[in-house]
């Protein structure tokens, strides 16, 4: 089972336990608040930052968390809290953009496979299987080796390596919708295929995709952090959670805060987006 099929299963499980009442759960509210905080950190980081995230102060290096430096300071005396905030934009941007790339590619492949006839379906199916044979991160590494390291390449790399999963799920979804009674009715009524695709099938397929994407963002952020951790994503001095984690690991024995806080942000963001994704999934099934 791939990560994305796992996500699909999560969606299904969430739907199964959906409660008829529309009242959101406590977890969902907390997750929503956290995501709102992340959005503020992304769009208006200066509202939250207490220092310039790239301003060095070597004399203040390795300070533990205190009133002046909430998350402590790193090896160059930079304020870790401000850097974690500054890193939100990078990490979220990579996560969202990579998911968008993966979803768009998956949509193209999925639509082609389900409506392009048997030969195209066969071709796309085999292509997706070949891509699936590579572990996702390996595929991303391959792209980076070819295109060179950097944040943009890392985004594209993560996007490309999630695409086969989306393609397979989208194809399955479209095929099941294709045989739904309302589509058959439309066909009997003599609607053209593009019209059926545009007016009936895609709108019904899109909402589940949004749910899937919300869940995918968390994973994309983790992958992007992993690439930066390996030194293949963000370039110095850019604050990025994975890169900060990597820098802090060297001093793990003496300065725990350098790894713990960026790590908590990665974990927190992943959990928050997943919880929100599940809530969306419940709503989606509940509404239907």
């Amino acid at each position, binding site marked *: 089972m791939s990560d994305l099929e796992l996500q699909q299963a999560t969606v299904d499980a969430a739907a199964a336990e959906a409660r008829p009442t529309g009242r959101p759960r406590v977890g969902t509210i907390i997750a929503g608040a956290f995501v709102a905080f992340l959005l503020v950190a992304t769009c208006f980081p200066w509202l939250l930052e207490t220092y310039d995230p790239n301003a*060095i102060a*070597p004399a203040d290096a390795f300070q533990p968390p205190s009133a002046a430096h909430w998350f402590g300071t790193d090896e*160059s005396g930079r304020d870790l809290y401000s850097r974690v905030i500054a890193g939100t934009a990078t990490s979220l941007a990579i996560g969202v953009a990579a998911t968008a790339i993966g979803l768009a590619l998956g949509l193209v492949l999925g639509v082609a496979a389900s409506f392009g006839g048997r030969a195209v379906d066969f071709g796309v199916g085999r292509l997706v299987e070949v891509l699936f044979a590579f572990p996702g991160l390996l595929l991303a590494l391959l792209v980076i080796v070819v295109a060179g390291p950097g944040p943009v390449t890392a985004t594209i790399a993560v996007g490309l390596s999630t695409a086969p999963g989306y393609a397979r799920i989208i194809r399955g979804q479209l095929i099941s919708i294709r045989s739904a009674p309302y589509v058959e009715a439309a066909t009997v009524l003599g609607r053209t295929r593009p019209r059926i695709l545009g007016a009936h099938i895609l709108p019904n397929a899109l909402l589940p995709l949004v749910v899937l994407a919300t869940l995918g963002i968390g994973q994309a952020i983790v992958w992007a952090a992993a690439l930066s951790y390996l030194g293949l994503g963000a370039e*110095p*001095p850019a604050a990025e959670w994975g890169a900060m984690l990597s820098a802090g690991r060297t001093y*793990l024995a003496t300065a725990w805060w350098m790894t713990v806080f960026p790590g908590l942000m990665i974990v927190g963001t992943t959990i928050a987006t997943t919880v929100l994704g599940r809530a969306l999934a419940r709503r989606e099934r509940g509404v239907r």
Partner: protein
Amino acid sequence: MHAALHPLRRPRTFGLAVAALVGAVALAGCQAAEPDASDEPVAGGTLRYASGDAEPTCLDPHVGGNYPQALVATQFLESLVSLDESGEIIPWLAESWQASDDGLTWEFTLRDDVEFTDGTPFDAEAVKANVEHLKDPATQSSTGYLALGKVDRVEVVSPEVARFVLTAPDSALLESLSQPWLAIESPAGLARGMDENCQAPIGTGPFVVDGWEKQERISLVRNDDYVSPPADARHEGAAYLEAIDWRFIPDAASRYAALQAGQVDVIDNPQPDTAAAAEKSGDPTWIDAPRPGASNRIELNSGQAPFDDERVREAFIAAVDVNDGIDSLYFGTAERSYSPLSSAEALAYSDPDLFETDLDRANALLDEAGWAERDDDGTRVKEGERLVVRFPVSTNQSVPAEQSLFEQVQATAKEAGFDVQISLLDLSSWYGALFAHEYEIVSAPYTKVGPDVLRILYHSDSITPAPSGYFANLAQVNDPEIDALLTDAASTSDAAERADLYERAQALILGGHYLLPLYDQQNSFLVANSVHGARALPTVSTPTFYDAWIAD
């Protein structure tokens, strides 16, 4: 790399390794017990060494000639002469030597009882073959080739006497010959061709290359017939250790963890915080051995814009502040340098006044040089060009602390309007960036015994690439006055005149704002307390385990 930590040769530490794998760091303390009360060396055992330097692509240090090659070659190759701790030249494979009055011929009397490990006798023919190998462009030598620049040929006077014929007097000849990059290999081994010789060069050393699993380990076994230790060794005959297991663990934190867990006995390139802790506690032992030759410095490429303008170079140096960073990142294990030469060099000349941080002066100089405008990022602009400073950094040649220092360089230079762009590269991409002149600043360690390293680094001849493609004059210094001083210094046999010439040359190089000295080339080792007798050779500070033994 993960796998490199697992296989273990010595059964007695297997249990410890398992314990270590489940994360019981505390147990490791038990293995690094107090040294044995008796200081009697014990024969046998395998020493496990973990190197953080790049894995060589060729084990023959004649080919190219970088420090990672020297580290491992020291275990199985030997040179004609060596250095003792006071810096005096001492006999090794050569027993004695005599220069002619004009300094143009040197006769070396060789030991007559030494054989290479393949049975080939060590004699003057072998010395001749090695010098020819180094000078042959097909060998693609850089370090050895440059060091032999003045040697025209070697003549075989008799099997025990080799005569070096020079094109000009060379006051640095003995220092050059002491280095591992000019070590003497078996002529029969060299004759096998580069591919085969790179896999397992054949020398006269205390160990022999037994096998090389790429990305994993080099296996070295004892040379039981060994007879030729340098004059300052502490014992005679074969080494105590049966074998050395030479591993590569590029990541500093993993390397230290492997030492703590008892999976390896010696590591190089420790992170400064761990070195400082070891210096305090004495467990493991910290061996600090700064490399000779150049200091660790940032070179400014004066061969192209924007640093072809001396004012811009001076502005950069005035803008950058590294003192606080060195203190905090190196935990007191590194001292700021103000010289192009290592503090290990007696003739090093320092001028701290040239390196005082002065942002106002930097700004004034840049305004004067025409970089008066700034864009939205605060980066200075001149005729539509941004003041970009490309900085390729070799991750194989710098510990994380140094990379952090480079980020601080980036941050302080930004205040004056420089956009320093650091790219972290592996060794071959880094060489690629240098060969293509895609750098404005670079930090490139260069190790050589003696002040003649200045000629290699700052004489205009070194702008021309060596056969390996490397040009050592990365600052692209092209000053006839500096050239003349360095050429004269390398030729004179008068010690006082030599010292004076080198001082004047260094003053000119520093005054030309071609470089920003940081500290000595950091070179240190952490040695488990069960290992005794390990030391760094005073030549280029590579470790030697000939006298080493492991206590149970």
